[in-house]
């Protein structure tokens, strides 16, 4: 593998027009001469799973949250034996990461610690998870309660009569800190159960691989999945709304594609049944349509709206389900069938094993199923609900500051780092408090102007898949499972650059072989262009993409491993998927004929 040398991070040039990009990100997040020796000898890969696009300065907080939280839980709390945290660097606006191994001499002692600490969670998993949901739900209420509004000319009289004792300006300073801290705290909880959950899943995965070296990753996942989890609820709600439209006799109106959602809702409110359906939609929308539409990791950027923000996205799906329901199809998810199949294959693989393994297998599958609910559901609580709310409140703050004349437009705030936003709010509040003009508008304007130019210039840069010397083997179990990055893939990256451009390799995440025309989508809002039977080529999918899976023949994604959303959903729908190809979106064009081999993870361009 060492033949495939990737560029050193210190050799990467700044794209023309992006000079000075470093000022957009926190200094501790960058490669620096002071630690060149350390950083140049590490293998970094582009984290396209979470951050396929250039990051806005403000959005750096997303990386900071997991940088620290994942590290602390692995390194300091659970003493994950082989792995410390995952280190991060930002280069040309893209995130690069590397797994930090625990020192070999520490591993035995860490293993002892881990056994005691992780056992406590495994043994009490159900009750801890109930407590976890309560903690996170409480944080969700807190963050939802935060409101930003332009500071009043004069404080309401209640401030005096109720002896509030502080000003709206102070509260703006305080509430921004609360917003950030609440999000940060929730991201601690995100990792509280995640990596030990993956360790339990890994145990089952490896046991199956030792017993059956050729077993498909997806067969293993199938033995564990299929539970009725909250993650599927948004899609179930779309199906339910479709059936409700039919029951209420408003299907024809709902299916009238000449109206957007706003027009449709207005038309429907003329009729009591229509009114009831719109009310149902609105009640459902919060929380079930608080679903991020990012192409990468859900909630990774502020720039993507939710279904609730753009109801036309879920409406496409409701209409599709409705058409099928009226056509006589059963549109309910076959949960019972999936569970039956899960139990059948579990029993049959068990029968093929040595009887000496049965006890270990039974324990491993039971624990893997126990943790799997968390592994699937945490995405809804944290990646969707928490992050969507965090970004919504951040945008409310930005609109507030723009309305007060501090920024020319709301979007400007996202070109400041979060620390700079703290400074700007104080500056704004001081100006308001003292009754004079803040320095900010004039101070920030040229900086924001310059950064917008840099941001555009960075977008044009195509990051290499990796930097630095590749290791002999990539075998850190969590990296392999979460990011889908393994030795073969790194080898492929080295080869794809010189390849004939006719094949792409990734991870076979859902079995089957299919040929068809490609439909390249960069964003879920383009979903309505997909024709039945096409092969979806996308950066990655999230639950926002759910309705598309009933129409497509296969999925090819740039990022993701066997436990990624795309992988899980494609297995659920029984369509082939190759994930983690690295550059399918950039390589493939809509209309091109492809062969997708979900068994071997190979995508062949046939035209």
């Amino acid at each position, binding site marked *: 593998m060492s033949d495939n040398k990737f560029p050193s991070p210190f050799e990467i040039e700044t794209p023309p027009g992006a000079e000075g990009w470093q000022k957009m990100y926190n200094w501790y997040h960058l490669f620096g001469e002071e630690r060149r020796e350390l950083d140049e000898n590490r293998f970094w890969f582009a984290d396209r799973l979470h951050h396929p696009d250039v990051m806005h300065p403000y959005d750096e907080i997303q990386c900071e949250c997991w940088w620290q939280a994942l590290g602390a839980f692995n390194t300091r709390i659970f003493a*994950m*034996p*082989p792995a410390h945290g995952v280190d991060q660097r930002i280069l040309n606006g893209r995130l690069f990461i590397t797994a930090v191994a625990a020192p070999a001499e520490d*591993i*035995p002692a860490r*293993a002892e610690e*881990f*056994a005691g600490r*992780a*056992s406590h969670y*495994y043994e009490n998993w159900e009750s801890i998870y109930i407590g976890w949901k309560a903690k996170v739900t409480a944080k969700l209420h807190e963050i939802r309660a935060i409101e930003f509004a332009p500071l009043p000319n004069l404080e309401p009289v209640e401030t005096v009569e109720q002896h509030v004792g502080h000003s709206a300006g102070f509260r703006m300073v305080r509430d921004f800190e609360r917003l950030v801290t609440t999000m940060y705290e929730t991201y601690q909880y995100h990792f509280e159960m995640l990596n030990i959950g993956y*360790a*339990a899943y*890994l*145990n089952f*995965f*490896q*046991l199956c691989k*030792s*017993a*059956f*070296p*050729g*077993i*498909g990753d997806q*067969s293993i996942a*199938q033995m564990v999945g299929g539970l009725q989890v909250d993650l599927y609820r948004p899609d179930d709600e779309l199906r339910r709304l479709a059936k409700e439209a039919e029951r209420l006799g408003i299907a024809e109106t709902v299916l009238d594609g000449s109206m957007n959602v706003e027009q449709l809702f207005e038309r429907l409110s003329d009729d009591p049944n229509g009114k009831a359906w719109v009310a149902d939609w609105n009640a459902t929308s919060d929380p079930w349509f608080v679903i991020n539409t990012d192409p990468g990791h859900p909630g990774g950027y502020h720039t993507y709206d939710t279904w609730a923000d753009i109801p036309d996205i879920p409406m496409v799906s409701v209409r599709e389900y409705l058409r099928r329901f009226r056509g006589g199809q059963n549109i309910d998810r076959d949960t019972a069938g999936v569970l039956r199949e899960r139990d*059948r*294959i579990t029993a*049959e*693989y068990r029968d*093929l*094993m*040595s009887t*000496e*393994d049965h*006890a*270990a*297998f039974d*324990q*491993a599958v039971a*624990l893997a199923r126990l943790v799997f609910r968390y592994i699937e559901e945490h995405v809804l609580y944290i990646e969707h609900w928490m992050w969507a709310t965090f970004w919504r409140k951040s945008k409310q703050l930005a609109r507030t500051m723009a309305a007060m004349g501090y920024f020319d437009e709301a979007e400007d705030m996202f070109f400041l780092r979060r620390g700079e936003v703290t400074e700007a709010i104080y500056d704004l509040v001081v100006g308001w408090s003292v009754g004079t003009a803040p320095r900010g508008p004039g101070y920030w304007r040229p900086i924001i102007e310059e950064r917008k130019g840099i941001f555009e210039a960075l977008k044009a840069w195509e990051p290499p898949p990796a930097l630095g010397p590749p290791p002999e083997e990539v*075998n850190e*179990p969590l990296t392999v499972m979460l990011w889908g990055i393994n030795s073969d893939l790194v080898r492929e990256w080295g080869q794809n650059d010189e390849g004939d451009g006719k094949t792409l390799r990734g991870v076979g995440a859902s*079995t*089957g*072989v299919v040929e068809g025309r490609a439909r390249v989508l960069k964003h879920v809002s383009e979903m309505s262009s997909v024709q039945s039977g096409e092969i979806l080529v996308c950066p990655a999918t999230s639950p926002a993409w759910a309705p598309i899976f009933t129409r497509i023949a296969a999925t090819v994604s740039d990022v993701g491993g066997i436990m990624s959303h795309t992988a899980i959903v494609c297995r659920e729908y029984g369509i082939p998927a190759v994930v983690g190809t690295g550059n399918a979106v950039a390589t493939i064009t809509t209309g091109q004929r492809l062969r997708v081999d979900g*068994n*071997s993870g190979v995508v062949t361009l046939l035209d």
Partner: protein
Amino acid sequence: MHCLAATLWTNNVDRAHRVAQSLDVGFAWGEHLEAARPDQDDRSNDQPEPHVTAPYIVRIDNAGGADADLLGGKGASLARLTDAGLRVPPGFVVSTQAYRHAVLDGIRDQLDAAVAAVPAHASSDEMDAACARVRALVAAVELDEAVAESIHEAYLALGDDVAVAVRSSSAVEDSVEHSFAGEHDTYLWVRGVDEVIARVLDCWASMFTTRAMEYRRKAGLSGGGDAMAVVVQEMVEARAAGVFMTLDPENGDRSKIAVEAIWGLGEPLVSGTATPDSFKIDKVTGEVVHRSVVDKPIEMVRAEHGTGTATVEVAADRRETQSLTEDELAELLRLARIVEKHFGCPQDGEFAIKQGGGADSVYLVQSRPETVWSHRSVEKASTGATLMDSILSHLVPDRDAK
């Protein structure tokens, strides 16, 4: 003693040691032939009783539980496959009893002398020539009325001038211990009772090819070959054919079946002269987890005049086409799983797809115990006594080594 296995060909190891102790070099086979003779039985008690009154002919679909001693390995497995309700081309077995009667009783003295004349050193011209003389002797045996008549009747019962495959079915081949893969002869597209009888004699004679003799010698088996049955089975006009194994031969994974197939008859694949399409199928999910479709430039088909085979070029548009359909693969998986269950151990078998194709055109023409991985018991995959031990062993793979 320089090499026990090379000089003593016997199916009884204890006996071999006894004999070996009394010899410096040389041959135990004259003596061994004595031992193998049913009427002079001096076998130890764990040897099966000879079939003194056994029939010369046994129908594959009415074998009454007869085993490899009477039907040979191949014949017995076909009988059991048929018994399990699997699709096997109809046919009959010319039993070891027929061989014993015709050869061991008929030309015993000449055979003993001819076998004793085969020199010791392997792969020499002299050995070839001596083996050829043994074969000529066997192939020229005159069948007595009773044996010839039974073959005639059984052949006619298959139909009018039916084309058949005539295949050697030795009593020791295809056991768990020895595969004997391809060591004995097979004749395809044989027609007419005289031809069938001639090919049966050829099969008997094929016990004495240099190759077969050497194989037996290396395996420590009887030099004379104590029993050879012959399977006579209706030909399947094969569009494609191949082999299957009820585990993954690369790693012993018992959740997979491996399939290889080529166009036409399976002989070029079995003899290793053709590169096949290959597949691995998961037994539980039915997924084809590996698939390799290769260029197949030639195929073996029935010769134009109707008997024997010919090797012809494959039409350009078929060469790189997959030789089995998805339905046929699914059917093979189903059959292989039944076979494995029925025999109670991993199997390695052959199949043919009748012209016309489709799931109900898949015929099994052979199944035998897999010989490599079957010797190993299913290995324990789990590590450690507790769930946490197991979790740690996977997080820190070399933990146990420390």
